[in-house]
């Protein structure tokens, strides 16, 4: 008998069918992957199983016994642990308090056993070889570290089912390897791991069975070893995979950007050419985001970036100044500082370039709309109406809107921080093509990505960062994954930068 069974599940959001008549089953002791394009309904299915969401129709059963819906607490009590796609941490609290939230150990007096809490946390982190400071406030951690906290929290529960909704989207290689190790170990212990990911090669590597969702319906469940990426893509989007992208040729060496990055460790320099795409690789916490934000005017003590363009100093003292100097930054945390969630697509797309559409301080809605439409068309945005709230778009389309906002400012230097995180394979290829076009039109582009394939497909040059320093600078042809990992994790490198 399958461990988990869903029968005839449907979920409707005010007029949108997120899931339609889904029948699904998974066994103990397997890693079962779920794939599908953005908005296919993967997260919806996962949140329903986790008890955080109520189905409109249908039933769930565990070991053949129907599950009664009783919220996340009830699901947890029945052995379902979950890492949600969106962050589910409390930023003000420490790592330890987050991990054992709701399950704190108590002393005989009935008070929380603080020493025990720390000890248990340390034990847990050690057991799974996760490096985190149990006392650190979660809000101060990087996105990847926060993701590890979430994973640790799920692992801390005595569970029979572990749900991982896109856990690797923000992880870098080492963490990812560690996570896969952990997943295999849990499988060996007879646990069911439900795994959602857009990285199809990862999925094929780790999963036993794969279920494909499209438009809220199940397309099919197959054994992983019987499948190729192309089969999966065919199932997911109903047509063949987009042509695999390759790195473009190096551009003419022209108009130089010289970026000087001053940190506690000293000063270093990075140069970029107009039309060039530079990839920035590194492990979690290497300091890539901090560097990118510093260029864009979000300096912090110990992370000051100054830059010159053809020898002339650009003013990037604030994001506003940086933007005026032609620098645009695409954030890695779309929800937190990318989207204006309550506003419509036009407002989101035009936010940075509004003055261009106004006359004498007065808005011209038609002009705004026309300009937004033009850009978003170039990005192949899929939306019912331009007037709909951006929060109702799928993740990939949200990313396109935010990218569109950056493009509308016609940047000379674009910094993309994890531009395709959580974006499905079709949209990803489109985004890549857009970035290439932009570079071809003369912009310098800095791509921060934790995905080696992405850097290889896009960049002309890959710079590796470790511990806030640039430790290697390789033309893309010479960079293989092995060598980059060594550089990023502190091994000997061939080419050190200044």
């Amino acid at each position, binding site marked *: 008998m399958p461990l988990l069974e869903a029968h005839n599940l449907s979920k409707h959001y005010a007029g949108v069918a997120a899931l339609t008549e889904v029948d699904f089953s998974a066994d103990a002791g397997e890693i079962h992957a779920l794939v599908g394009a953005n908005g296919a309904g993967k997260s919806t299915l996962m949140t329903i199983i986790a008890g955080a969401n109520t189905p409109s129709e249908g039933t769930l059963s565990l070991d053949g016994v129907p599950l009664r819906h009783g919220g996340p607490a009830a699901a947890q009590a029945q052995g379902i642990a979950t890492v949600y796609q969106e962050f589910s941490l409390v930023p003000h609290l420490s790592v330890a308090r987050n991990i054992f939230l709701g399950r704190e150990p108590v002393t005989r007096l009935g008070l929380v056993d603080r020493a025990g809490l720390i000890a248990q946390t340390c034990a847990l982190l050690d057991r799974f070889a996760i490096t985190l400071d149990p006392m650190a406030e979660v809000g101060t951690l990087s996105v990847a570290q926060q993701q590890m906290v979430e994973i640790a929290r799920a692992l801390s529960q005595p569970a029979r089912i572990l749900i991982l909704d896109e856990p690797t989207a923000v992880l870098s290689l080492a963490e990812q390897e560690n996570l896969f190790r952990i997943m295999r170990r849990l499988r060996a212990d007879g646990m069911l791991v439900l795994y959602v990911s857009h990285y199809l090669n990862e999925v094929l590597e780790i999963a036993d069975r794969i279920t494909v969702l499209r438009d809220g319906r199940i397309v099919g469940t197959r054994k992983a070893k019987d499948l190729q990426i192309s089969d999966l893509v065919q199932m997911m989007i109903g047509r063949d995979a987009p042509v695999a992208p390759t790195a473009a040729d190096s551009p003419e060496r022209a108009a130089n950007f010289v970026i000087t990055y001053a940190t506690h460790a000293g000063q270093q320099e990075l140069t970029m050419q107009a039309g060039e795409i530079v990839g920035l690789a590194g492990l979690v916490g290497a300091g890539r985001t901090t560097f990118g*934000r510093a260029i864009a005017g979000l300096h912090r003590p110990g992370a000051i970036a100054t830059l010159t363009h053809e020898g002339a100093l650009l003013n990037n003292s604030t994001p506003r100044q940086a933007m005026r100097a032609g620098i645009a930054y695409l954030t890695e945390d779309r929800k937190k500082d990318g989207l204006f969630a309550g506003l419509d697509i036009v407002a989101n797309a035009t936010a940075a370039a509004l003055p261009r559409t106004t006359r004498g301080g007065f808005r011209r809605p038609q002009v705004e709309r026309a300009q937004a439409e033009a850009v978003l068309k170039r990005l192949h945005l899929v939306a019912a109406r331009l007037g709909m709230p951006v929060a109702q778009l799928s993740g990939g389309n949200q990313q396109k809107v935010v990218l569109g906002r950056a493009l509308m400012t016609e940047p000379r230097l674009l910094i993309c921080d994890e531009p395709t995180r959580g974006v499905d394979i079709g949209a990803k290829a489109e985004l890549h093509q857009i970035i290439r076009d932009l570079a071809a039109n003369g912009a310098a582009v800095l791509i921060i990505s934790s995905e080696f394939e992405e850097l290889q497909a896009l960049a002309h040059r890959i710079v590796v960062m470790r511990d806030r320093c640039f430790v290697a600078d390789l033309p893309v042809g010479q960079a293989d994954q092995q060598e980059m990992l060594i550089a990023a994790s502190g091994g000997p490198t061939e080419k050190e930068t200044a």
Partner: protein
Amino acid sequence: MSGAVAQPGQMGIAFGRAGIWIALSVVLVVAGALLPQFRDPENLANIGRQIGVLGILAIGQTFVIAAGAIDLSVGMLAGLVVVLTCALSPEYALLPVMLAMMCLGAGVGVLNGVMFTRLRLNPLILTFGMMSVLHGVIFIITDRSIGRAPSFLRDLANGQMWGVPFAAMIVLALGIAGHVALTRSKFGYHLLATGGNTESARRAGIPTRRIFVLAFALSGISAALAGLLLAGRIGVGFPLAGQGLELDAIVAVVLGGTALSGGRGSVARAIAGVVLLAIISNLLNLMQVSGFAQTALKGMIVVIAILVNQPPKDRA
């Protein structure tokens, strides 16, 4: 309340926590050095008496604010307790009256909490409406001062032992209990989590609705306790006795560094905020600052205090 938000820098927090203590020490040292009348033990005892009502209110308010809500109804609730206590005392024994008042406070708190969680109302508007309702109820009971507070409460509010006013002892005892509850108990852990991010807390299996209801209930009970002490302090059922107390309590809580956005809070620092306000008011009186100038200064002090004692900075 959305996903992972505020990214406070460590420095900011350290200062934020120390802020109220620094301010309190500075004011104490300067006042003690410059004004001999201030050092007078009798005067210090006065201040001890003066923090009673607000101190208790601030404890309850800390819980609600740390949970990410706010309770404007406590002032009028305390006022209602004052009126009822004084009206009932001549006829009924003290203990049942006090118990009834605590139940009343808890009841109003639970009502606030249930409406907050079930009707998804903004807490400011909800409790503002409740404040108006309670105001009306007070005046349905009486439009003038009635009754007399039982002598036990009057002694409690105004008396002292070994030079320490009972009121200060009560605040200290309740403050320690509240502080432990917020920082050490499971309930406190869950409350801060709920205030920090309600959805995350819910997903972690915390019964967030019950947490909110409990927080409001605590606020209601503390309002009832404050009302009993206030009844003892003013000795009579004055219908408007509680007016404006809610704002003073909120100011004290915020002076103590508790963010109105929830997720953080300290009972100890809220009480420090109350003490600071009481000392400032005492000093202004001793320095013979006119009433109008006192109002102006009080406002400016609030502004300066919160500017100095800012919440930690977000990650750039």
